[in-house]
C-alpha cells in the first residue's frame, strides 16, 4: 500500500469500485431477468450484446480520480466502469441501456454507444477505433490552450489493431495530452493474450513511440491511481502522452451468454476479485469497518436502483421518429 495516497482518496477509490460493481450486478440482473428459460439475446428490457466490466473497476477508479468533467474519456465496448467513474449522468446512461427516450442517445445508441457531451464521454464498439477520436479531442484541448486531457481506453486484444499504432504515433509526435489506457484482462473474447500479442505486455510498446509506458500488475487500484497521476500531470503540463497498461481481470464472460468453455482457469477467477481484496486491505489499515462498508454499499445501491427506476419509467422512443438525428 503506497504511503503517498491518503485515506480520503482510498475511501473514494473503494466507493467508486463498489458503485461500479453494484451497477454491473444490477445490469446483469436486469439483463437476464426476462431472457429465461431460453436465453434470447434480443429479448427483454435490455436486449443486445452486454459487455460488463466487473473485475476491471480498479482501472476506471484509479484513472478517473484525476479527471474533471472538462477532460475527455473514450471507452470501449465495455464502457460502464469508465462512464461511471468519469461522472456520466447515471440516470440517462441507464435509460440509454434500456433504450428509452431519456437516454443519453434517446435510445439510438445502446450500451456500446454512450455519449455524454457534458462529461466529454464517448465510446465505440469497434476495437481500438476509439483511440483516434480521443487524440483529436486532445488536439482540440491543446489548440485551445487549455490544460484539459483526454483518456483513451482499449483492451489488450485491441492493442494489436492498426488504429492503436497510428494513434500512439500521432499523439507522441504532436505531444498531445492523452493518456492511453490498456486494460489487459488476459482475453480478447476467447483468445488469450499469448495467442494475440507478440510481446509480454503492451507497456513495452510505448518505446516504439518514444513515450513513457507503465505496466501496473495485480489489478492494484492504488498503483493505477499513482501511474495515472503522473500521466495526467505530464499531459496537463505539455509532456505528451503516456501509455498505461493495467493487468486486470475479466470476472465474468466476454459478454452475457458466454459460457467461457475456452477458459481453463475459470474456478480460480472469483478468488482474484479486486474489490474484496481492496476492502480487506482498507479494513486492515483501519480505513474501513463494517459500518463504513455498509454505508458505501447502501449509497451505491440507492444510486443504482434509482437510475434503474428512472430508466424503466422513461418512455420508449416513438417509432415515427426513426428518421430523426441522422443529420443535424
Amino acid at each position, binding site marked *: 500500500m503506497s504511503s503517498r495516497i491518503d485515506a480520503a482518496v482510498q475511501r473514494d477509490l473503494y466507493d467508486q469500485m463498489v458503485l461500479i460493481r453494484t451497477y454491473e450486478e444490477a445490469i*446483469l440482473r436486469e439483463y*437476464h431477468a426476462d431472457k429465461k428459460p*431460453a*436465453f*434470447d*439475446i*434480443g*429479448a427483454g428490457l435490455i*436486449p*443486445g*450484446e452486454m459487455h460488463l466490466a466487473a473485475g476491471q473497476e480498479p482501472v476506471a477508479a484509479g484513472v478517473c480520480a484525476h479527471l474533471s468533467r472538462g477532460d475527455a474519456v473514450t471507452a470501449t465496448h465495455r464502457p460502464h466502469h469508465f462512464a461511471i467513474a468519469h461522472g456520466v449522468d447515471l440516470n440517462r446512461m441507464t435509460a*440509454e441501456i434500456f*433504450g*428509452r427516450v431519456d437516454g443519453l*442517445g434517446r*435510445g*439510438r*445508441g*445502446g*450500451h*456500446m*454507444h454512450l455519449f455524454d457531451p457534458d462529461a466529454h464521454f464517448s465510446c*465505440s*464498439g*469497434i*476495437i*481500438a*477505433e476509439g483511440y483516434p477520436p480521443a487524440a483529436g479531442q486532445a488536439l482540440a484541448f491543446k489548440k485551445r490552450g487549455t490544460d484539459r486531457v483526454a483518456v483513451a481506453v482499449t483492451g489488450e*486484444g*485491441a492493442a*494489436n*489493431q*492498426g*488504429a492503436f499504432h497510428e494513434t500512439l504515433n500521432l499523439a507522441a509526435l504532436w505531444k498531445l495530452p492523452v493518456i492511453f489506457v490498456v486494460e489487459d484482462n488476459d482475453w*480478447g*473474447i*476467447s*483468445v488469450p493474450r499469448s*495467442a*494475440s*500479442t507478440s510481446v509480454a505486455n503492451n507497456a513495452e510498446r510505448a518505446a516504439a513511440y518514444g513515450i513513457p509506458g507503465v505496466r501496473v500488475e495485480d489489478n492494484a487500484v492504488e498503483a493505477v491511481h499513482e501511474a495515472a497521476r503522473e500521466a495526467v500531470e505530464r499531459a496537463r503540463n505539455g509532456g505528451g502522452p503516456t501509455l498505461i497498461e493495467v493487468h486486470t481481470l475479466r470476472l*465474468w*464472460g466476454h459478454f*452475457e*451468454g*458466454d*459460457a*467461457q*468453455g*475456452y477458459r481453463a482457469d475459470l474456478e480460480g477467477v472469483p478468488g482474484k476479485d479486486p474489490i474484496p481484496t481492496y476492502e480487506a486491505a482498507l479494513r486492515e489499515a483501519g480505513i474501513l469497518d463494517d459500518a463504513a462498508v455498509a454505508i458505501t454499499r447502501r449509497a451505491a445501491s440507492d444510486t443504482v436502483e434509482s437510475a434503474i427506476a428512472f430508466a424503466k419509467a422513461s418512455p*420508449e*422512443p*416513438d*417509432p*415515427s*421518429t*426513426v*428518421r430523426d438525428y*441522422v443529420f443535424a
Partner: protein
Amino acid sequence: MSIDTTQQPATEGDPAEQPAAAPATKRLNTAKAMVEAIAREMERDEDVFVLGEDVGAYGGIFSSTTGLLDRFGPERVMDTPISETGFIGAAIGAATEGMRPIVELMFVDFFGVCMDQIYNHMAKIHFESGGNVKVPMVLMTAVGGGYSDGAQHSQCLWGTFAHLPGMKVVVPSNPADAAGLMTAAIRDDNPVVFMFHKGIQGLPWMAKNKRSIGPVPTGDHVVEIGKAATARPGSDVTVVTLSLSVHHALDVAEELAADGTADVEVIDLRSIVPLDTEAIIESVTRTGHLVIVDEDYQSFGLSGEIAARIAEHDPTILKAPISRVAVPDVPIPYARPLEYTALPTPARIKEAIIGQVAPA
C-alpha cells in the same frame, strides 16, 4: 447464469428417412450446414484452412466454425489477433500462393478497418495481374440486425461489397444453400464474400426462425454462384429479396395467398455478384409488380440496382411504381421499437405488396 453459446441444437436427422428418389439429406441448421461444407472441403483439399477471430475454441461467434478446431487442429483452424487488415491480408497472400483460405470477418460492420485489403487487393489482384495471379479465397462474415446490437453490429452492407468489382458476393437464406454456396465459394478460383445472416444460423441463443433448420444434401452439393431461386412461385407480385428477408417474404406470401389478396412470387437472389438479372426480369415481366425487400440501406445499393436493371431493359414491364422495403438510410437504431421500424419487417413487406395489388 451463462449460456453455452457454442452448443448446437441436435440437428442430425436420419438420412434413411428420406424418400428414396431424392438425394439423401440430413436436417441441419444453417451454421452446422456451413461447418459441414467447410469440413468436407478441408478433407478434400489440404490447401483449405480457416482463420479469424475466435474461430478456434470458441467455434465462431455465430457458430460458423464450431468443432473444426477439434477435427483439424490449430494449424488449419487459426485464431488470430484482432487485426483484420493483418489476417485478411495474410489470407490474400496465402491465396496468391495457391492455398484456399476461408477467413472470417466477425461482423461485416467491421469492414472499415480492413477494406483496403478486401477491395484494393483481394478483389483487384487478378485483374491487375492480367489474369496471371488468382486469389481463391472465401471471406465469410455475419450480417444483419434485429436483436438490438446497435449501429455498429447490425448492418448488412452487401451493397457496399457488390459495388466494388472483382469479388463475388453470395448471401444464402437457408441451410442447403449455405452448404452449397459455401462449397462453390471454396472451389471458386475467385474471391467470394459469403454473407450469412445471424438470424438464420439457427443459434440457440437467438429468436428462432422455423426455416433455419432444413434438409441439406449429404453428398457433394454445390449451388452455382449467380443463380437466383424461386422460393415461391406466384403470378401477381414479384418480391425480390435475399437472406433473412426471404423468410419474412414467404410468411407474408402465405398469409396473402390464404386470404386471397395476392399470389406472390418470391425470388431469393442467393447471389448478388453476379446478379441473376434474367430471373428478375422474367418474373417481373409476368407479374408487372415489383417489391424489393432489402435489409441493407435503401439508397445507392442493391434495391437501386435491381430497379436499374429493369429500367434499362424495359420500364414498361412495370404496371405500377416499384416498392422498396429497406432500411431507410438511417443507422440501425438500438431501441427495439426504432430498430423494428427501420428493418424490413413482415408488416412493411405486407403493406408494400398490398399497395402493389390495390386498385390505384
